[in-house]
């Protein structure tokens, strides 16, 4: 019994990291429809921002989170205004452009911050562990779970319960109709892209104490994030959550029985089989168009 519960917690922890990494991507892909291959590098920027804030300014991780969200979000906003906006008519070009942005970001970071691994320290208040029903769990992993859940709820609230979200969903369904009712579609898309990249930055910062920070770290996350989004179904925030935690649990169990690498491979095969039979992903809205 104990061991089952331990497994569940491990899965939740993996799942919450997956959700953090995928949330921004899911929102951007599900609304603007941009396949953002630079998403991993936005995560990487967040991690480096956490490191730089501590190293050069002396601001530690937790108080820095808001700054990192705003900073990376602002960067995403500029990328959208200056580059992506011109390419929406050519989806293939946006893929190339975001890939290019990713490569440039990796190099810029390598040249400025160096290619060595960097480490971000755990917030001291969360370095310990907590016992949940007799299972010792790292306090920081619980923090990640809570933050991931909160960010999901906030995003859901923005999209489904605010006027901004209503405008966003209108533009997604029919840009022409939305603008003929006074909605500035360009501005809505910039803000959404900025929010999504801000979330990526936040994810990178929060994950940074658990993993080493390097210019290439984004590559792994972007793959994970895409797996989550594709499995959950594009345009389904709810699907993204279910998919992140299911993948988390499955990865956790297989990693327990075998090892991490085999777990990754099996999960990938599982995803491919699901997509083979449900190409639209697990969750889609059912309404006549």
């Amino acid at each position, binding site marked *: 019994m104990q061991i089952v519960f331990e497994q569940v917690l491990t899965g939740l922890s993996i799942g919450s990291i997956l959700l953090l990494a995928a949330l921004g991507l899911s929102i951007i892909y599900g609304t603007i429809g941009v396949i953002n291959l630079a998403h991993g590098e936005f995560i990487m920027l967040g991690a480096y921002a956490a490191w730089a804030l501590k190293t050069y300014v002396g601001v530690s991780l937790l108080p820095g989170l808001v700054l990192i969200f705003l900073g990376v979000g602002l960067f995403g906003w500029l990328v959208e205004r200056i580059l992506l906006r011109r390419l929406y008519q050519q989806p293939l070009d946006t893929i190339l452009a975001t890939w290019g942005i990713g490569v440039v970001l990796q190099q810029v970071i390598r040249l400025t911050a160096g290619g060595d691994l960097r480490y971000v320290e755990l917030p001291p208040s969360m370095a310990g562990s907590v016992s949940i029903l007799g299972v010792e769990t790292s306090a920081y992993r619980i923090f990640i779970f809570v933050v991931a859940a909160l960010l999901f709820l906030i995003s859901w609230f923005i999209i489904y319960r605010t006027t901004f979200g209503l405008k966003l*969903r209108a533009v997604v369904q029919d840009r022409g*109709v939305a603008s003929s009712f006074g909605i500035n579609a360009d501005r809505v898309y910039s803000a959404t892209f900025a929010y999504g990249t801000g979330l990526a930055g936040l994810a990178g910062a929060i994950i940074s104490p658990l993993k080493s920070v390097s210019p290439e770290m984004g590559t792994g996350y972007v793959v994970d994030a895409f797996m989550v989004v594709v499995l959950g179904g594009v345009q389904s925030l709810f699907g993204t959550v279910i998919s992140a935690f299911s993948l988390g649990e499955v990865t956790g169990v297989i990693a327990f029985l075998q090892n991490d690498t085999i777990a990754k491979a099996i999960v990938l095969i599982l995803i491919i089989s699901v997509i083979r039979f449900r190409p639209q992903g697990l969750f889609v809205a059912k*309404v006549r168009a």
Partner: protein
Amino acid sequence: MLEIDNLSAFYGNSRALQNVTLEVADAGFLSVLGRNGVGKTALLRAIVGLMDRTEGSIRLDGEEIAATPTHDRVRHGIGYVPQGRGILPQFTVRENLKLGTFARRDPGHAGVLEDKVFDLFPVLKELLNRRGGNLSGGQQQQLAIARAMLTDPKIVLLDEPTEGIQPNIVEQIEDVIMRLNDEHGITVILVEQDVNFARRASRSFVIIEKGHVAASGPIDTLTDDLVHRHMAV
């Protein structure tokens, strides 16, 4: 007062409107007539700013709006009922109606649904929580008109609002359109295939052929001969 001068409009590189000149007075009622594919929809889209490119001038109450982006342009008081209704399928009826309020000239009232639309279309009240995509064509059409009403427009553009709708609802929609013009003083531009309704409701007409104006004038100059020449198949 809407004044259109020498307006050309393009889908990509193909010209759908050529040097169209017309004007509609305040509280006027203009019917736009013509065969399929002549550019009637293009004319309304050009007024709203949804064509890929336009040349020429569009003045609303003396203000040049041809270069203004759509979302700013409609705030001058333009309500649009597009052909095919333009109902957002995933939105509920309530959300579709709310959309109408975002283009109001007085932004303080954004989001407020007034009862006047339910007086005009009582059926919408029962459908508030239904998805737009799951309404019948006639219900969607009523929703589209109600939504345009909520923008509190000075001028409404209606693109074949009775296309494919059962006779008693057609009557109701026609009645609403005439009341908007008579009682509320809203300027109407109506694209219509039914010449009899155009004659009954409007004050002026324009017949489009191959993207340019083939005939226009006060509605009592719309002779059977003109109709026969430009609209018979």
